């Protein structure tokens, strides 16, 4: 009988553990206080969330003690948009940070509101790449696709996208390409091949198919590309430059390379959610996030390319950022994300059905 009770207790404990594990998905970075206005932001997870919290949210909260910013991490832009759409009858989110490739359809479906310079005056100071052509949320930072590698195990550091196929790295490449990484890589390969990706991506897809035969160790590295490379579980990976560079500052065995004249610009957007419960405060925060103070911090400490033309950086600081003029993206590709947004579903479907499975 005692044994049966003990087993029942063990089984119950196992169930509780399982339930707690299931409940851990989707986390919030900062806590809220009931006395303050809470602006709810949903966006990218991991290192970006930590940097955004440290370099943008905390200084803003310090300057605005009556406002709390609650940041919810979601793995992908689609997941963030899905959360916003699911909450549309009783919206809980104010701001959403999503890839430009995911923003277009969301705009068409009325998920986000337009943001004018009257709402957020810092829009007037944006660099051209960051401006929105249709009046919706502007870009909040500029980053580039990058190759990352483990300095301890890689003899010859990769220097171009083609190196992902290098037999020297067979079974040691990690990349998650069923998302913006894949879209950017296709644009980068088309640039290298001299192709126009608005006409056809057949050649690039054929190239990517060659990664299937054991060249890639994982298309879903755990916990992420950066950690897999740093731990030595993989030798080479595909990552985002700014995040990888910050990661490499703390993990000295990680090297980061943006191919010379071959970087691929990513310009994620910051959006006002349609029906945002705290619209006024949300717009103030959005304005701050694209302004010179926040952008300067993101560029100097996070290596992101600044979207504000008012940011002043030394040549050395600029060369380390993902800036298009003077940064690692100099001479690289700035994909037509508005076009890619129209074919994102098709491209991702091809990647999923013909490359990763």
């Amino acid at each position, binding site marked *: 009988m005692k044994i049966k009770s003990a087993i029942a207790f063990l089984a119950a404990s196992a169930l509780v553990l399982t339930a707690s594990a299931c409940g851990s998905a989707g986390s919030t970075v900062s806590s809220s206080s009931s006395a303050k206005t809470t602006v709810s932001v949903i966006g990218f997870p991991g290192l970006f969330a930590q940097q955004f919290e440290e370099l943008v949210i905390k200084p803003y909260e310090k300057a605005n003690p009556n406002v709390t910013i609650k940041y919810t991490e979601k793995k992908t832009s689609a997941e963030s948009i899905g959360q916003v759409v699911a909450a549309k009858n009783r919206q809980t989110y104010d701001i959403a940070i999503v890839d430009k490739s995911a923003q277009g*359809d969301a705009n068409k479906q009325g998920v986000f509101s337009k943001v004018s310079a009257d709402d957020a005056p810092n829009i007037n100071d944006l660099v051209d790449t960051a401006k929105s052509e249709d009046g919706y949320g502007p870009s909040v930072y500029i980053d580039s696709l990058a190759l990352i590698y483990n300095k301890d195990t890689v003899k010859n550091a990769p220097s171009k996208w083609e190196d992902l196929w290098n037999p020297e790295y067979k079974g040691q490449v990690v990349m998650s390409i*069923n*998302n913006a990484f894949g879209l950017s890589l296709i644009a980068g390969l088309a640039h290298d091949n001299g192709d126009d990706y608005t006409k056809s991506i057949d050649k690039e897809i054929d190239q990517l198919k060659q990664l299937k035969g054991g060249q890639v160790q994982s298309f879903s590295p*755990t916990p992420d590309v950066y950690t897999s490379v740093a731990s030595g*579980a993989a030798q080479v990976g595909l990552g985002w430059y700014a995040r990888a560079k910050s990661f490499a500052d703390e993990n000295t065995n990680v090297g980061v390379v943006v191919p010379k004249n071959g970087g691929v610009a990513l310009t994620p957007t910051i959006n006002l959610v349609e029906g945002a419960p705290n619209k006024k405060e949300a717009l103030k925060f959005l304005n701050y996030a694209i302004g010179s103070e926040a952008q300067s911090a993101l560029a100097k400490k996070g290596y992101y390319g600044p979207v504000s033309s008012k940011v002043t950086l030394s040549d050395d600081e600029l060369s380390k950022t993902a800036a298009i003029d003077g940064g690692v993206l100099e001479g690289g590709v700035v994909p037509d994300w508005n076009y890619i947004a129209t074919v994102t579903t098709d491209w*991702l479907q091809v990647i999923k059905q013909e490359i990763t499975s």
Partner: protein
Amino acid sequence: MKRHLRLSTILLVIAVASLAYLYLVPLVYVLRTAFSEPSSIGFSDSAALTLASFKELATNPYYVKILGTTLIISLMVAVMTALIAYPLALAIVLFPERIGNLLLIFVVTPMLTSSIARTFGWVVILGPTGLISSTLRTLGVAQPPQLMGTTFGISLGLAQIYIPYATLIMSSAFGALNQNLSYAAQTLGASKMMTFKRIILPLTANGLFSSCMLVFVLSASAYVTPQVLGSGKVQTLATEIYDSAVVALNWPMASALAIVLIVLYAAIMIIVNVVKAHAERIRS
């Protein structure tokens, strides 16, 4: 008595209402979504019903392959689990109580660790720089076989997670096994193998079937282990439902896949019950 009956009725109404609200309402919503027009953002607001997602499921070889992979993995896990859990459960029931209890604790203890942690444990073992690959390299195998990103690797991880559940179900189902019947058979000249075949196996078949069915169903719907051990190279129904819902935002397809999973459960339960009934008929 009347008061007792009223209390029972109230409790029953609460249970049925909770089940209806928490299970049936979402299920109806999933069913409705499965027949909605796909859109790039979730699903279209149009009230029109369409079979587009189901047509895509039936005609696109990608989804047919996913269904096949899910069935293969579930079958492999059910077999692997049965092969290990069955002798364990028999030992728990047939061995002296003290040893049986010790075995039971030994089997159940891994359940105290989260299945996510156990899955990551398998990454350490099966990974390219993991225990198995390192050992094989030490033994002179230059290119050890990749176990991560394979159906076998996923099945191994899932089997380890479900062995305790299967053992518990089997040992409780085998509780009624009367060992005197085995002794009687052996006294009458039956060999140990014949005793097992003619006495023990028929008496434990129900428990074996039930646990295999549970493990099969749990494996078909498992998400974390296939996601982590599959390395993005092996898709199952559960991982595809997640991808369709949150990566591609194709909620009608995610819902259609969920319906397929439910139909799969129902089909398995019907098949197992028919087989069980048939076996009972033959035995009697």
